[in-house]
């Protein structure tokens, strides 16, 4: 019989499904966390008078969250894109 089993290079389908699921959950949580951080009341925490390095804290915070979201999305998007179709 020449029915070869799954080759070693091929990832285990169960593991693969789990990985895919975690990626999607990660993307969802990142989006929700982004909304949470960019909306009141949480964002008001950073609307303080402080100005580290002469730049208002709120400006640093806003662009910091923004950049973090972009970076997170960059890291996730390429992997998500390879996971295929299903929702």
């Amino acid at each position, binding site marked *: 019989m020449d029915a070869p089993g799954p080759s070693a290079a091929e990832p285990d389908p169960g593991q693969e499904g789990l990985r895919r699921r975690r990626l999607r959950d990660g993307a969802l949580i990142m989006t929700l966390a982004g909304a949470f951080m*960019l*909306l009141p*009341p949480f964002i008001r925490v950073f609307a303080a008078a402080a100005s580290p390095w002469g730049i208002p804290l709120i*400006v640093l915070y806003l*662009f910091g969250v923004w950049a973090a979201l*972009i970076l997170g999305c960059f890291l996730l*998007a390429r992997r998500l894109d390879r996971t295929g179709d299903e*929702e």
Partner: protein
Amino acid sequence: MAANLLIAVATGYVALLFLVAFLADRRAAAGRARWLRSPVVYTLSISVYCTAWTFYGAVGSAARSGLEFAAIYTGPTLVFVGWWFLLRKLVRIGRSLRITSVADLLSSRYGKSPAIAVIVTLIAVVGSTPYIALQLQSLTLSFSVLAAGSGQEWPEAATAFWLAAGLALFTILFGTRNVDANERHHGVVTAIALEAVVKLLALIAVGIFAVWGVAGGLGAAFARADPQLLAQGQVFGERWVAITLLSASAVICLPRMFQVTVVENVDERHLATAAWAFPLYLMLICLFVLPIAIIGRAVLPADANPDLFVLTLPLALGREELALLAFLGGFSSATSMVIVAAIALSTMLSNHIIVPLWLAGQRGRHAAAGDVRAMLLASRRAGIVAILALGYLYFRITGGSEALAAIGLIAFAGAAQIMPALLAGIFWRGATRSGALAGVTAGSLIWAYTLFLPSFDGSFLLSAATLADGPWGIAALRPQALFGLQGLDPLVHCMFWSLTANVGLLATVSLLTGQSLLERLQAALFVDVFRMRAARAEPVIRRSATSGDLYTLSERILGRAAARQLFREMAAEQGRADALPEATPAMIERLERALAGAVGAASAHAMVSQIAGGETISMEALISIADETAQIVDYSRRLESKSRELEATAAELRRANRQLQEISAQKDAFLNHVSHELRTPMTSIRSFAEILREGDLTAEERQRFVTIIHEESQRLTRLLDEILDLSFLESGRVNWQLEPIDVEAVIDQALAATEALIARSGMVLHRAPRAEGLIAMGQRDRLAQVFINLVSNAVKYAQGAGRHIAIRTGRTATDIFVEVADDGPGVPPEDRFQIFEKFARARGQTDSRGAGLGLPISREIMRNLGGDLRLVPTRRGATFRVTLPLPQRAASVA
């Protein structure tokens, strides 16, 4: 700056755009457009989101309200970061169903409804016209500002007119080359991508100049801020939330955004890049907005318009070349918006308003007669001209005095009315056409009443008095304080009421109304777009048409070359090279989808339906498609239950097999018994026959032997009768007509038959007093047979040892019973369980008169009569008890 130089630069830039668009179109046509189809170009084209409103207006907003402007860009950022859940689905739907616009999307989803398409188109046009006017205004303003130094009077109206005309020309040239609206406009997209780069570079250049050239560093720049501007707390209130929400829905619902994100998408995978690259672009655009605003306010005179800081800051500081770059950036922002909006809106106008009107005019004539393609292209071009003309007129009439940002947000709020129906359409199967219509209509009316019309400050439709006191003085209906809801920002107020009505009606009406079959089909196609199998075996809509008619229609809409190409492909797929494809339901469905790419789903459906008759929606196919999702979930469950079922079946089979083996063993034993019982009399018969044949016998001997042979023959016959009788009784085919019988009379009959036997045995019969009215449903002869058998058995087995036979009758609550008892040796305990088995003669009994079938037959008879026969445990002798149900019980049993 010299006006001539300005005109020369602008014209040169426009020429460059024309050239780029022309080259890109040519390369794409030649099939060498690899880099044109890159995710970077896609991302840059999406940046058409940033219009002149962003380029000039963001700084203006920042100068007035600090960070508030950022919400307009964080909303879309969140939408793109969450691309996997919404945008990806939209793009997939748009591509698979060849959606041509956001109006087409909703129309297609809600049963290819023309009404929804018309309403969405109207909202889009109404919302976009001021927005386009705003672009024209910012363009003319920027011209005036730059030329102001030269001392020449700048003709604003003429500038706006020629700009509008030029943009219309560009859009017509590159936006209506092909009738298929779903086909990509490579030229336009490439030119817009170039403009995206220019506007980003320009804004960053001005920002760097402001921060490092003027202020001397970021810290220094922020140090010059008005402390009032950076007292940020109150920015993050209701308005911030409302703007985030608005911008998030605008980046999807605005006609131009839908156009570049969904319609112009060439590869779904590009979304994975745009998901982070577009937010990055937005962040870069926003990076220097606040510093420019701060420096502008610090450096420029107090009466300077903050909306023009990007231009006036470098100009005031003598950096004309930088001002020129900023001017080009603003020019790019404005023109790219106008071009894409014009394409998107003209497609919507022509597909959803002009074509249906034209189709209505065609009614009665031969279906889809005339050159649809030419009509389509003409209507698109007319649409573009009309939209730019509207924008120009709006600009001229309003005079352009408002702050730019207000108009942008008003347009956003209008577009947001589409969002609930869109979201429900792709995530909720139950959303109905009526629900969507009600929601969108109500939301838009409230939007117009509470935000759009009041923006004219009482100069259009709503008077200043109405604004202040409500219509007819009804305070509860004041446009900006509806039902007394005061103290809210007008934008928040509008969003609250319009979206509440919109979502509320969408949900309620959807729950109250039903869906047509077509709607259900479309709902399934939308909501489960990722779960649909690529090729369904069975098309859902069944109709018939001739290939010839279909070809004519396609040729008229798509043009000869495209139609021929399409039909050749379809024929090849059907394996019919060199012929017209067969007009199967599947082929018609595919054709309709191709036509939808040109004229929209509703019009395509109407046109094809005119030709294709006998349209029915196959319920089965629809159910199968609608249940496809459920099916997949179901499938695994079914597999599970199948395997459980299989196990159960296997167990059942094993049990059945065991039973069969038992039955087979019983049958063997039975045959063995029968054989034995037959051979025994036959042995005597044969043996005595041989003796008789030899002769040499006395007459006495001969007489005796012949008698034995005769008896044994009778025994054989009786045995065969009994076997046949038993097999009949056991077969379940017994169908006796039951009649009411008097049990005592039957006993009389049985005793008459056995009288001689009892007398011969010397035993005494005791009969209890007759019970009156012992009437049971039964068969007289069969019941008599049972009694005869029991009495004979008593005689046979008790003879010698006992002397009495007793018969007693009676009734219980449910039964009539008859007992036959003897005082013989009784049935040994070890035999009690098997005396009713076939051939189980009592041990030690040698009986040549019965084969041991009497009791089994009697019991079968009783059971067939609904009663039973049992051995009653007694201390002496044997007592058999016959029971029969009382008549009323028998009736209920039967």
